[in-house]
């Protein structure tokens, strides 16, 4: 029971962070067809910028300023990079963002060094909020939960209840028609790209001190975010939400299961001291999202809730 509750709580928080990252990516992907390889690099950039701003001022200023800065960088990238490459097709775009991820990695190493920076939870939130089964639960995790939930509601309101959201939704499926109606589609693309990157930056600001802020964080997070987008389905924020939660819970609960394959498949004659039998579920946790990705692409290419095939 104890492990289950903690796994559930941590899984939900991890899932919400994943959703914050993938919501921007899924919007960009479904609108422009660009699977932005550098999306997790913007997440890393958000964490590092927040670290620097926090050193100079306070965490609360960083919480607002860092995502805005990351969003601006994203808009510049779209305007002067992606738009240029767009004419050469999707493979060229994918390659461009692949190179961009590479560049952001190197630039981060120049400015902030090759080792992890000491990006800490703000003192105001650095206390145990409640005690559960004798273990203290940090307040910052609940703060993450609230920020993510607030962002979720704000995004939902923006997309489903405002005029701007209506136009964005239309541009997802019928960009030419929206253009013919007099809307500036390139500007919409640029803004969506910027907002998507800003969301990734926000995830970096609140996730960077929850995990570790080091130059490897983009490489670790990037592929998992792809998995969320593909599993959730193209252009479906609901799908991305379900997939993010699924993967968040799957991974955190797998880590807390100590059973080995021999314990589970013992009835098939798998010995506990063979090489396969010794593998624990916990050590398989990092592989699970990719297993899910390959399975989904083979069995149901349009993802859980997608309307079109990838």
């Amino acid at each position, binding site marked *: 029971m104890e492990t289950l509750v903690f796994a559930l709580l941590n899984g939900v928080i991890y899932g919400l962070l994943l959703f914050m990252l993938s919501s921007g990516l899924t919007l960009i992907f479904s609108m422009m*067809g660009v*699977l932005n390889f550098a999306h997790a690099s913007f997440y890393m950039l958000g964490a590092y910028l927040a670290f620097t701003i926090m050193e100079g001022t306070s965490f609360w200023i960083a919480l607002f300023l860092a995502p805005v800065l990351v969003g601006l960088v994203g808009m510049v990238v779209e305007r002067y*990079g992606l738009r*240029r*490459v767009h004419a*050469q097709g*999707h*493979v*060229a775009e*994918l*390659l*461009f963002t*692949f*190179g*961009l991820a*590479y*560049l952001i*990695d*190197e*630039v981060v*190493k*120049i*400015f902030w*060094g090759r080792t992890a920076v000491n990006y800490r939870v703000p003192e105001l939130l650095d206390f145990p909020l409640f005690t559960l089964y004798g273990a203290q639960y940090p307040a910052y995790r609940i703060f993450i939960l609230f920020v993510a939930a607030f962002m979720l509601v704000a995004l939902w309101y923006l997309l489903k209840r405002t005029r701007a959201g209506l136009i964005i939704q239309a541009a997802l499926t019928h960009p030419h028609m929206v253009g013919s109606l007099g809307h500036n589609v390139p500007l919409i693309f640029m803004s969506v790209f910027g907002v998507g990157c800003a969301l990734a930056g926000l995830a970096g600001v609140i996730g960077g001190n929850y995990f570790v802020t080091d130059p490897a964080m983009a*490489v670790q997070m990037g*592929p998992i975010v*792809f*998995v969320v987008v*593909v599993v959730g389905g193209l252009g479906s924020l609901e799908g991305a939400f379900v997939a993010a939660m699924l993967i968040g819970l799957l991974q955190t609960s797998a880590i807390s299961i100590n059973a080995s394959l021999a314990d589970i498949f013992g009835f098939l004659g798998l010995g506990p001291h063979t*090489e*396969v039998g010794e*593998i624990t579920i916990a*050590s398989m946790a*990092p*592989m699970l999202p*990719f*297993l899910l*990705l*390959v399975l989904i*692409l*083979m069995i149901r*290419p349009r993802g859980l809730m997608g309307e079109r*095939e*990838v």
Partner: protein
Amino acid sequence: MTDMTATYAALEPSRAEKFRQRTVPLIAFAVLLLVIPLFNPSRSMVTLLNHMGITIVFALSYNMLLGRAGLLSFGHAVYMGLGGYFAVHVMNWVADGSGFWGAVPVFTMPAFGFGAGALAGAVIGWPSCRRAGTPFAMISLGVAELVAAAGFMFDSLFGGEMGISGDRMSGPEFLGLSLGPVDEVYWFIAFWTFIGVLGTYAFTRTPLGKLSEATRDNPERVEFVGYSPQRVRYLVFIFAGAFAGMAGGMSAVQDEIFTPENLSLIPSGAILIATYVGGIRYFTGPIMGAIIMTYMGSNLSDYTAGWLLYLGLMFVGVVMFLPNGIAGIVYGTTDTIRAGRLGEVWQSWLIRLAGLVLIATSVITIVEVAFRWSEGYGEVFEPFGLHLDTTNLLTWVLGVVPLVLGVLLVLKSAKGESK
């Protein structure tokens, strides 16, 4: 009817043309491989050449997918890695020397790698080749992550973090090569590089090779003609895996070790960059890319800590402005000269060259100064006796002014060309 056939016959290249375009370059390549040892290259140079040979075969196999079949893979190192691992295991069986394996010369390792790579391609390709484009790229990424993670899990097959090492001097000698010293390994690598180049080139001439290009350009029409694009992709994928496995076998003999790192996304990304920078639309593009990248990887890293950044800048630059890569520049230049149009374009070329040199000056200044600042040892970038530190005004002038001028010049030459 006879008229028609007559016209078609006239369109076919003459035997002399075929010989000049297809056979002569291969002969020249073989001669080059034979001549190189006459210059007495140093040991480290030979090692570098050996790695170039391996990368050439690997890049060519990758281009069977990316350039010819239009399949972007983020996990091609999986096949080189699995081929190489199998070759290392075979080398160890050879060293045990019992039964059949005792008679197998280490010289044949790339053939075993070829087989293992083909098998891996056949197994993994079956689910991944159903779709092209982004889904294919995503599946290749997922598979690469899975295989790399499995590599760290099954120690008896992959040897854990330490990897598995072999001994290339075991087993019977072949053609009097003990494969001990690197210059003997050179002959081994040269032989298999030639086989690799010949094999991948021959593949482009087969009906399957032609069909793979057709599938890249228009899968629907291929289907109308009566072929299954899925099947074409699958077969090409198996061959690409096989040649990658062959490169793995070559690498197993040269370096005598394989680790799970060899299966990961890092070598897959490196070969993607090398192939693309070389130029994916030309057969020789990946060869050029492999040579340049291997050279840069081993030499530039001695000069500057920022070589990965230069690599990234170069890659992004090629993707944005030079989709045909280095081979595109080489062939574009020779074509212009051959057509006698050099007189019209040399001014615009000179302006562009000057612009690029100016941009490079700025970029190098910024990167070098930034890296020294970031390391924090107080080291100063001092090219040509200049003392460029962060407080020097000249540093900032050199970082900005040539960049602006260079961009203006390049834009001007681009404008002149489009007129």
